[in-house]
């Protein structure tokens, strides 16, 4: 379990990136931090592995304040996946995936075997193992990034807009893949995105942040539509636009769900 207690990050110039956040991330679930740029979601994420230290408040992992843990050791125990994959361009795919286990002192042979296994888990062909990142497509690079994040078998996986830079088709594929992985592995995933659809798709818990790093609403995805906290929330999730206002229409004896403009969204099962 990850717990944020009154966490604030204020920069020397006075900018408040995160303003007093209280939040609990339950274990083995996916929590998605969503918000526009400048809402402090990435800062909040980076406080978990001490890439950023809060100026006030504390972040606890299983009851231990991370401020008391050596940052290098802490980071090696937490998976991290970022936008544009962040792969080391001078290392092969295999070596990239092996990085953290080797840093933690795993011997080469077992680290290698584990890395090959992980490439398969994330749906990459073994023939890519000896390639350099630049020789891979954007989607493949992100898969390697996920494999690398999982390599040391961390309990916690931090994902900072991991699918933000791939095209929509590949993104959908990667999102489905992540859902499958999460069902199999049951990690505690904290996922940052600015895409509310992605948040609803992946999150067991969704946390909506606004400029100044304040939590506007948090809860299960459906709650955002059923009872948006305020106009900002309705606006952000699109409840005030036609896309999420669905109604039923009878077509050929079946009940079809359409949006405000009458565009079909699906069929209602009896």
């Amino acid at each position, binding site marked *: 379990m990850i717990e944020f207690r009154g966490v604030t990050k204020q920069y020397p110039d006075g900018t408040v990136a995160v303003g007093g956040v209280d939040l609990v991330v339950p274990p083995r679930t996916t929590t998605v931090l969503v918000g526009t740029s400048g809402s402090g979601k990435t800062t909040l994420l980076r406080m978990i592995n001490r890439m950023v230290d809060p100026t006030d408040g504390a972040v606890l992992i299983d009851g231990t304040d991370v401020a008391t843990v050596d940052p*290098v050791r802490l980071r090696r125990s937490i998976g991290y996946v970022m936008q544009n994959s962040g792969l080391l*361009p001078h290392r092969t795919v295999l070596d990239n995936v092996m990085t953290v286990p080797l*840093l933690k002192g795993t011997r080469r042979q077992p680290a290698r075997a584990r890395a090959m296994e992980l490439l398969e888990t994330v749906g990459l062909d073994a023939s890519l193992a000896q390639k350099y990142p630049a020789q891979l497509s954007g989607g493949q690079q992100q898969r390697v990034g996920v494999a690398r994040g999982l390599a040391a078998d961390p309990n916690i996986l931090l994902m900072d807009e991991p699918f933000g830079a791939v095209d929509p088709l590949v993104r959908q594929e990667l999102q489905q893949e992540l859902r499958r992985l999460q069902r199999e592995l049951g990690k505690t995933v904290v996922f940052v995105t600015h895409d509310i659809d992605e948040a609803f798709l992946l999150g067991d818990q969704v946390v909506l942040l606004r400029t100044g790093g304040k939590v506007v609403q948090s809860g299960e995805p459906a709650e955002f539509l059923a009872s948006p906290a305020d106009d900002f929330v309705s606006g952000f999730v699109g409840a005030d636009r036609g896309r999420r206002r669905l109604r039923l229409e009878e077509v050929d004896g079946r009940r079809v769900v359409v949006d405000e403009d009458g565009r079909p969204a699906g069929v209602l099962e009896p």
Partner: protein
Amino acid sequence: MNWLVQNLGLVGELLLVHLALSVPAIILSFVIAIPIGYLAHRQRWARGVLLTLCGVLYAIPSLALFIALPAITGFGIRSPLNLVVALTLYGIAVMVRTAADAFDAVSPDTRLAATAMGYSAVGRFWAVELPLAGPVLLAGLRVVIVSTVSLVTVGAVIGVQSLGSLFTDGFQRGIVAEIVTGIVATMVLALALDALSVLAGRLLLPWSRRAAPSRRSSAQAVPIEAGEPA
């Protein structure tokens, strides 16, 4: 040609002496410039000061430096060590700016990823930043190699033997073939060392040649920004 054939022994000997003067200076300046360049890269305030100092250092006329240096180092004016120190200073002056640029060229994303994975600052330098700065460092090293090999010849004027002695001697005695031999041998030596450094780069930086993305598996359309990490 006749002159060269008759003096092959002398040319060979001077070539070795020339090598013994330039190689230590090249290696020393490369090794010393890297931490200074890294400091200039990390610290904004240090950057201006260091790069300016290097610029000024390079502006000192070489002959003046050769003559003034013994007062500081205590080596004799004709000592090869004196020359090596002077050449190292020039090498550093050239190399520091390139080293700073080389570290600047490492993608911030990659540095961030390395930190997030749990590299310590020292570990990240050796395992990530230094190798990724490699291609630009190599470009700087090549300039240092050529400029050092050519600068060694100036030492002949103050009496430190090298291939430059062939110009001074040939000039005094009016032997054109000797002067030409000196020039050609110096250039050949510079090119040979340059080729060697390029070869070393190929062995040490195999990834830099394969950086061009191949899109054989382009069944999916991949936007440029996703496919090309800086």
